[in-house]
């Protein structure tokens, strides 16, 4: 749309200029509400009508600290980062192999790999629970890392394969002709060309692990409890600790926002790669 047409549209529809701020406000409102709630003194949290202006307090964040929330936060960080790294380490070579494989059954194999993502997590709960209990992996970070890696691996393979498809094989052949070994070709030619894909994939893997509530609820108790489950633990029988829930929720959102902002450029290019041909 040209700028002249945009101006004409604005003249005809004065509300159009407000559309973005309004949509932005609607989208940000729950987050802002949560954030202001985390700084609100307890007696004011359930006040009706709600107060917009108040003297902020850090009592809920202090409460989180005292309740052992940092341990859960660290559990979330470790399980998310390690499972993402492992999924990438295993998934990238697999995606490359699948990309370069021209034999029959390639599609079938790819589909088979994706099956674990097709079924709802509840379908795997009981088998995993029983197996973990037998293996002594219940309530361990290792157990969570393994399950997140298992579920992220198909995502890595399926997301990375088109990026490797897009790298011309002639480049690799030329490098090989010049005497480069396969590791050099892979790490110095192929991988740099797939950076955007790796960034986008790693964010999605991290988000999946970071936001997971279901498996963490079933497979952890206290030692490996992750941040989302720890937030729910403030819903006590005698009452919900709204301030701590809001503070915990805000903290759970923070790393995702920071991480996403850091790799936003790669994320956009990674997710839209191949969308426009020609």
């Amino acid at each position, binding site marked *: 749309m040209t700028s002249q047409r945009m101006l004409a549209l604005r003249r005809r529809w004065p509300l159009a200029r407000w559309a973005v701020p309004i949509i932005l406000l609607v989208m940000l409102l729950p987050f802002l509400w949560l954030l202001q709630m985390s700084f609100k003194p*307890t*007696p004011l949290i*359930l*006040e*009706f009508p709600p107060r917009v202006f108040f003297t902020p307090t850090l009592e809920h964040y202090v409460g989180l600290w005292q309740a052992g929330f940092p341990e859960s936060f660290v559990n979330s960080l470790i399980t998310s980062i390690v499972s993402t790294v492992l999924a990438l380490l295993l998934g990238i070579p697999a995606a490359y192999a699948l990309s370069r494989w021209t034999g029959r059954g390639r599609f079938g194999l790819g589909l088979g790999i994706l099956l674990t993502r097709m079924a709802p997590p509840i379908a795997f*709960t*009981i088998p995993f*629970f*029983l197996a973990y*209990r037998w293996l002594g992996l*219940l309530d361990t970070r290792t157990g969570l890392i393994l399950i997140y890696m298992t579920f992220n691996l198909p995502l890595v393979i399926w997301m990375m394969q088109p990026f490797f498809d897009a790298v011309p094989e002639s480049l690799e052949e030329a490098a090989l002709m010049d005497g480069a070994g396969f590791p050099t070709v892979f790490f110095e030619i192929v991988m740099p060309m797939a950076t955007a894909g790796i960034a986008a994939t790693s964010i999605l893997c991290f988000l999946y692990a970071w936001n997971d509530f279901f498996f963490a*609820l*079933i497979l952890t*108790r*206290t030692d490996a409890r992750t941040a989302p*489950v720890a937030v*729910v*633990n*403030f*819903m*006590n*029988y*005698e*009452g*919900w600790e*709204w301030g701590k829930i809001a503070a915990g929720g805000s903290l759970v959102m923070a790393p995702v926002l920071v991480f996403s902002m850091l790799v936003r450029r790669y994320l956009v290019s990674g997710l839209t790669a191949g969308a426009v041909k020609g």
Partner: protein
Amino acid sequence: MRTTEPLRIDAQRRRLIKAAAATVAVSAGSTLAFPALAQAKPFAGVKLRGAAYQHGFFNILRKYIPEFEAQTGMTVDLQLSAFPVYNQQADLELSSGGSAWDFCNVTFILAARWVAAGLLANLDDFSNDRKLTPASWNPDDFVKGAQLPYLDKAGKTFGYSWEGGAMLMGISRTDLMKKRGVEAPRTFDELMKVCEAVNGQDGGSGPVTGFVSSNLHHWFLPPYIQGYGGDLFVNPPTDIKPALDTPASIEATAFYTTLLSKYGPQGVLGYTEDQARAALISGRSNIFIHSSSWVTAMLTSPDSKVKDTARVMRMPAGPKGDFPASNSQGLGIPKNAKNKEAAWEFIKWTLSPELTARIVKDTGHPSICRRSVIESAEYKRINTVNGQDIGKLYLEVLDMPSKTHNYMAYRTVKEFPLIGDVVNKAVERVVSGQMPPAESMKSAQEAALGSLRRAGAKV
């Protein structure tokens, strides 16, 4: 000199013999002492694992647990999670035959299912064994009404209650009631009149609503249904055919939904218990009928603005009788627990009359289930607030299901959670204006029958 030589040697020999004898005596004594010590601490070295949901009682108990550990030589690992989290984990742990826990909370709403499915150990084997339990522990001392959820059809015990809940009526604004010339309600009709009289009155910081409740309608509605002569099932726990479309159920639904829609605050359908309590203790709503610990906050909470005008009393009676709801939470032992005797030792200690009395005395914790302690002078002293004997009301209601007939039997039906969901939706439909009470309850009846049949119940 010579004569002294043998004497010295003799003395040395005697010292040597004495020392040897002493060494033998000490070592013999110590070898004898070790079994004696071991007998004093038969559970030395045992690591006891247990789980429950987060509750004030367990926070209190944790302060006393070191004493238990010192007495028995055990270490206790008590894992606490939020109520919904614990129930999810416990359900999975018990139904998959797990042995990760030696003791656990037997959740009221799940107790019937866990007991019926044989997931818990029979505690009578421990409490009736005089080698394991002294007569002074007295299982009959637990309030009978609170123990009902933990008994099977044969009367065997699978849990002992550590917490009781008794439905009472909290009135926050007796000042406004006086102004409007109405007394505390004792019948359903009077309740409606009081709500009408107070609703919309200026409470100082805006208009006051006559009534408030939370979204747990499956807990709040049954006393009204029973008050009109009905029940949720035809004859629980034997005949579990739903009875949601009877005239009594429809009349009760109409009554309860009127309280909510006409006299409740805006958005009452979405209210949690917390929000309802906040409305009550801030004086924004006049009447909240719920478990004692929720309504007595008006008198005890530091956030309460209505301490001078608040009153706690029995909930009003219906035309066909008085059926305030009660519940309890129990401690039990999973069927496959590895350390059953050690777990019983812990339960026995936790719920002993001595520790229960100490907890009440030290902390004022009121919702216990031992009759002897509830009836004690100390308990009465602590739980008499503004001249109101809350303990007496609590005991009356907690014991009521065992006095006449077990009208709380509907909660011991293992399929009750399915019916509870149906009831919640039925009430929401009426309050939100989607359906009239009769139509909504007829629809609820069909939905309940469908749910029960799908769950394998023969109805």
